[in-house]
């Protein structure tokens, strides 16, 4: 996993509530057995019409968002299915930072596992961002994870918090499986004391 410390990028606005992972990556694209290549299917059913043509009315199809790497969206983003294909698709399509008033738990957690920074801001600030992007006041944002700040070139400034351990892991791009494997002695000790009835009979 790549560490993320500072990020500057073009910001896109998707002002919808409860965007679920079925929309982020529709199920017909879950059949791949690799982690890569999902970006082309991001928001597929919204981005394209039934004939596979881009739908000009979909917010993220604006040409100015082509190179966007920061997504500002609505509350309860990423609800529904646990599919990690959702953050894979976002990352593959170039999004490294998401800004929303709230997230669904599993999605939020999956972001950290993939080096995506999900920033939580109060609804009022998120709404402000949406309108600034809409009126082209904000085109790019600077994110500093170490300082916990978010700024643009025209006077927007906000601070955000990430729970310290998660922040530490993102800043250092840590492999948490390796960390758990170091606890082998405690795990073994625990396993020796598990109740017998939790062993699964082989029949």
């Amino acid at each position, binding site marked *: 996993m790549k560490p993320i410390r500072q990020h500057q990028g073009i910001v896109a606005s998707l002002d919808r509530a409860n965007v679920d992972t079925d929309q982020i990556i529709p*199920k017909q694209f879950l059949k791949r*057995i690799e982690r890569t290549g999902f970006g082309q299917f991001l928001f597929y059913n919204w981005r394209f019409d*039934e004939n596979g043509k881009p739908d000009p009315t979909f917010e993220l199809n604006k040409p100015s968002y082509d190179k966007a790497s920061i997504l500002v969206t609505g509350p309860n983003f990423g609800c529904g299915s*646990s599919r990690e294909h959702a953050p894979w698709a976002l990352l593959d399509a170039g999004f490294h930072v998401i800004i929303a008033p709230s997230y669904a738990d*599993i999605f939020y957690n999956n972001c950290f596992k993939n080096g995506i920074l999900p920033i939580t801001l109060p609804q009022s600030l998120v709404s402000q961002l949406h309108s600034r992007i809409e009126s082209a006041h904000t085109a790019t944002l600077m994110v500093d994870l170490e300082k916990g700040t978010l700024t643009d070139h025209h006077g927007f400034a906000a601070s955000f918090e990430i729970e310290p351990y998660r922040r530490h892991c993102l800043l250092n791009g840590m492999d948490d499986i390796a960390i*758990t494997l170091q606890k082998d002695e405690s795990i073994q000790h625990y*396993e020796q004391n598990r109740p017998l009835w939790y062993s699964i009979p082989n029949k």
Partner: protein
Amino acid sequence: MKPRTLFEKVWDRHVIEQEEGKPATLYIDLHLVHEVTSPQAFAGLRLHGRSVRRPDLTTATMDHNVPTIHRSQPITDRTSVAQMDALVKNCQEFGIQLYDLDSPEQGIVHVIGPELGLTLPGKTIVCGDSHTSTHGAFGALAFGIGTSEVEHVLATQCLQQQKPKTMEVRIEGMLSPGVTAKDIILAVIAKIGTAGATGTVIEYTGKAIRQLSMEERMTICNMSIEAGARAGMIAPDETTFSYLRGRPKAPSEELFSEAIADWKQLVTDDGAIYDQQVILNASDIAPQVTWGTSPGMGTEVTNQVPFPEHYPTESEQKSVRRALDYMGLTPGTPITDIQVDRVFIGSCTNSRLEDLRAAAQVVKNRQVSPHVKAMVVPGSQQVKRAAEKEGLHHIFLAAGFEWRDSGCSMCLAMNDDSLGDKERCASTSNRNFEGRQGRGGRTHLVSPMMAAAAAIKGHFVDVRQWEPTIEEGLG
């Protein structure tokens, strides 16, 4: 000792290490695996030269992708085949028990776990699937994880977890005939919203919950995730123990009484405090029907499609308008005037034997409306055989339903079972998201009885008024 909730007891039992300011290292007793969210996890293991720590605590099945018809013929969808083949290969290589397509125990992962007796009180259970919350009905701490965490559990049998908060959802009173566990959970979600329980583990308590069967409890815990919760739990009791006794993977008889003595301690202590609390009375709950594109957008069958302008905030009005537009519904339309094209009875929410019995009772000696296409997809091959033993398949087939093999099927439409554009479906599944059952498809979530009644009449009906009279068997 400080009084603790059921969740806290199960949590505490599984914490291996807890450093200040860091997530806990939590031991996992049972890891369930399916074909869609696991291939990249196994690939990750290989990439790092890691093995599966406890193949004996890992069990796999195929459910999301599998065909529910013509099983003996080769599958035509090559990408699905690749995914199933990958699972076979991974399970062989790492020594994991797999219930594959030909297995008599194959079925939806959340249906077969309990059915086999793998799901037990006090266990920690994970699966790369959000509806893992189903298993909480047994007093297990069960939650869905992403693929990176699937890999983590395969490699270490542990997870790094932040401790969630707790929420009590207490259902007092008694359900009326024709009102089911599905209606309870839909009513809870309509009340607290799809993010109402975010960051929490729900414990369902109260008289109405205690009276439910294990299968009904599973329906409730299953949809905890639709309220945003990490997991749902119900304290184990005699209903739980008698369901489990004698199941193939449950503890042997010698261990069973010892286990029960331990499991009886898995109740919330008097005086324990939940972070949040919601109370509903079961007798106030009517059959529910969702009208929108999020499980919280639901109402009672006796109501009407809502008016967007009646919602307090502009953003709510906007989402309601969008949802009604997608669903092709006009505000003010009585729910019972909504006509359906398709009926789906299935999914890990409502595809167990009792669900099929309830639906069959409504259908018996009647015909599916001529403009409706209806199907029943049992949750597992075992459920299918048990239903056939009771002759339920004859009732469904005679009425004009299709009777399929088990799998996720039209719950998420990854196989060939799906809705066409603008087709409207009464579905016993758990998600009514845009396109969930097929691009442009319109899903209304309901109970099995409500789905069965809609199939017969061609539109929603209040199943409480179904003939023959309630006394003759409904509820």
